């Protein structure tokens, strides 16, 4: 471990996590929300992993199976507490599988693994954030001089990538930002952030996407982020992604997804109805205005995705399958 890392690890051990008495009173949901609120850079899967590490800290080191059971039950609690459990599942599955795999190794004593996890909580978070820089490094070359990128949502991977590209040549490429009127504030924030880096941004409404893509050679590529990347290489992402992907495929514009590998999840959505939880987008009403879900998502199938840009480089959607098979050994999530 290099020195700064050791320092990070040192800090972690000093965090007053042990003050919480025992697992019966440990509130994993509150921990998760605190973590997300306290660190705006944290992604959902990593926040879930951090919460589970905090959980490990509170339960006494008993038998392996007891610990695995505790982790599993708290993972379920955590997943039940949010609308969309898929991003969390990516984190909790990875964590559980890591525990199991480390214990399978001959030399991996349970205490050592536990100790390692407890000590390095912050390190994992910093690695996850570094992964985002890795995405920017891996993918910024797509955004060359004179190109125009269409994007929507507030993916930090995408804005990071665009900022990295802007560092190379300020004002040399342009961005078309698709505004989301349901989340006007967020759109304002992202656009402002991009403009502050010297990137010329054109804001368009969601209704204008097809028209803008039809303007020949005006838009060269689409970049979006993802909440979770499913095992077939598709993505679960902010609602609106699917239609943009369809329009891009129709206009033969490459559609790139910037996502960290810890968002890979063992889930095989068959269609829009199968996104892993119940989402009510259709609220028929003859009296008042319809209710809109706040954090609605949709599923974009892999056929519409040109490349995944991960911290490990640029890959085809099939990469997800290989990676998941590699660590889980099976795909029966």
């Amino acid at each position, binding site marked *: *471990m*290099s*020195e*700064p*890392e050791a320092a990070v690890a040192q800090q972690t051990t000093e965090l007053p996590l042990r003050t919480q008495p025992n697992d019966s009173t440990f509130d994993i949901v509150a921990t998760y929300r605190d973590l997300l609120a306290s660190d705006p850079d944290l992604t959902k899967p*990593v926040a879930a*992993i951090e919460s589970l590490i905090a959980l490990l800290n509170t339960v006494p080191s008993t038998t392996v199976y007891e610990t695995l059971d505790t982790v599993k039950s708290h993972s379920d609690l955590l997943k039940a507490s949010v609308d969309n459990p898929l991003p969390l599942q990516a984190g909790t599955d*990875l*964590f559980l*599988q*890591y525990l199991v*795999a480390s214990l399978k*190794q001959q030399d991996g004593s349970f205490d050592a693994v536990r100790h*390692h*996890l407890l000590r390095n909580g912050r*390190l*994992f978070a*910093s*690695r*996850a*954030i*570094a*992964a985002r*820089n*890795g995405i920017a*490094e*891996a993918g910024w*070359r*797509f955004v*060359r001089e004179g190109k125009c990128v269409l994007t929507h949502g507030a993916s930090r991977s995408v804005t990071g990538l665009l900022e990295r590209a802007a560092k190379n040549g300020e004002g040399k490429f342009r961005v078309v930002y698709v505004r989301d009127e349901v989340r006007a504030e967020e759109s304002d924030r992202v656009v402002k952030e991009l403009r502050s880096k010297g990137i010329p941004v054109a804001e368009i409404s969601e209704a204008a996407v097809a028209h803008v893509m039809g303007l020949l050679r005006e838009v060269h590529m689409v970049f979006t982020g993802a909440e979770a990347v499913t095992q077939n290489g598709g993505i679960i992402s902010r609602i609106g992604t699917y239609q943009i992907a369809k329009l891009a495929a129709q206009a033969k514009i490459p559609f790139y997804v910037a996502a960290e*590998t*810890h968002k*890979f999840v063992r889930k095989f959505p068959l269609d829009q109805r199968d996104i892993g939880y119940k989402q009510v987008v259709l609220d028929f009403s003859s009296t008042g205005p319809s209710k809109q879900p706040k954090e609605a998502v949709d599923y974009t199938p892999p056929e519409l995705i040109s*490349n995944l840009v991960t*911290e*490990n*480089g*640029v*890959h*085809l959607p*099939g*990469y997800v399958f*290989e*990676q*998941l098979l*590699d*660590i889980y050994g099976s795909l029966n999530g």
Partner: protein
Amino acid sequence: MPSVSSGHALDLEKFLKSLKGQPLEASINSLISLLKRRQIKGSEPCAVATAHILLQVVARSKWHDVDSLLANVSRTGRKLVGAQPNELVIGNIVRRVLGLIRDEASEDRGDTADESASDAPTPTDIVPPASSQQWTTRRLDSASSAAPAARPPIVSSYSSINPPKSLFHLLSTSPPADGDVSPFRNSGASTPTWRGNSSQIHALRSEVIDGIEEIKDEISQVDDQIAASAEVQIHPGDLVLVHQPSTTVERFILRAAQKRKFTVLIAVAPPRRHSAESQHATFRKKLSAAGITVVNVMNGGLMAYMSRVNKVIIGARAIVATGGVVADAGAAAITRAAKEQGTAVVVLSGVYKLSPESPFDESSLIEWGDSSTFVSFADGPLVCGAEIRTALTELIQPELVDTYITNLGTHSRDHLSSLISDHYKREDADFHIWEEAEP
């Protein structure tokens, strides 16, 4: 490929002959100018020349440890790539040689850096030879004293030079930067482990040279190995369309012609003013001798034939990481026509042409040629009034290709990424990016 005419082959031969007599720097410079002047061109000659010059670098340049050898090779490699960035094979061969040196060096150390980097417990198949025990102990000694300084300063940036592999990386015990690259790159402090014993240096030198010889053998055998799968691909009675057949494609077709009766359509570029004799004449003669019906097709009327064609065979100049194929200009239109009609498109290419680079910028892969074959320079109004461009190569979109045949067998597009990871070290994959990082 018609461009590799006998004249260019002569230049390559001349260059290879000159290697012995000249000092190393002079050979490197002459190769650079040959590449710049396009006197050596085409994938195979470029690959062969690169392998030869790197062999000279390993054999004759001054180096006393692995780091300086790697630095020598990558410095030379960078110059060559810079001389002709369109030829992706040059970079590929440089990467192969760098990977080879890393492999040999870590084997000599009895080093398990690679194993520790991948988090999955993999059985180590490197049995440390007796002599390497000494290395191991020495390495441990220096590890206790000099190691903290040798470690890279930050873990934070996953620079793409050293991307982690498994999903477990997030939770893994040690950052891979520790064992993976640092001893061979950017760390002055780790070199003491490898300084010393001239006999070990000598052993490493000869091992690396053997490895480069193997790469050269591989390049020379590629056509034969690819041709071995010809009988599986071409069936009796097939109508096979080839586009400006390269030697690889010619060998492939001729091999099939030994056993099968089929028809070959040769798509050629429209004749240019200077090329009086018909193209691919010897190839057609050989085919007719084998009893194969040959039809010459001018490039324009391809769609008309496509409905009857069973297979389109394209020789690649290079394949990029996404599966896109750099081929002679005109091939992309043919593959698109084939896609329209549902005809299978087969790409032939040696593994050495498979590049780990992603085509971030398509236009950088396209090579522009001499347009004087279309317009005479004496035609004043045209020369002044119009811009005439002629593309020699173009990128075939990966979705238009059905099958890739290499010397290692038949592959689908999804399989290419594992071929790439088999052949190139991850730390070498971004050879160009290095260049920018270390001016």
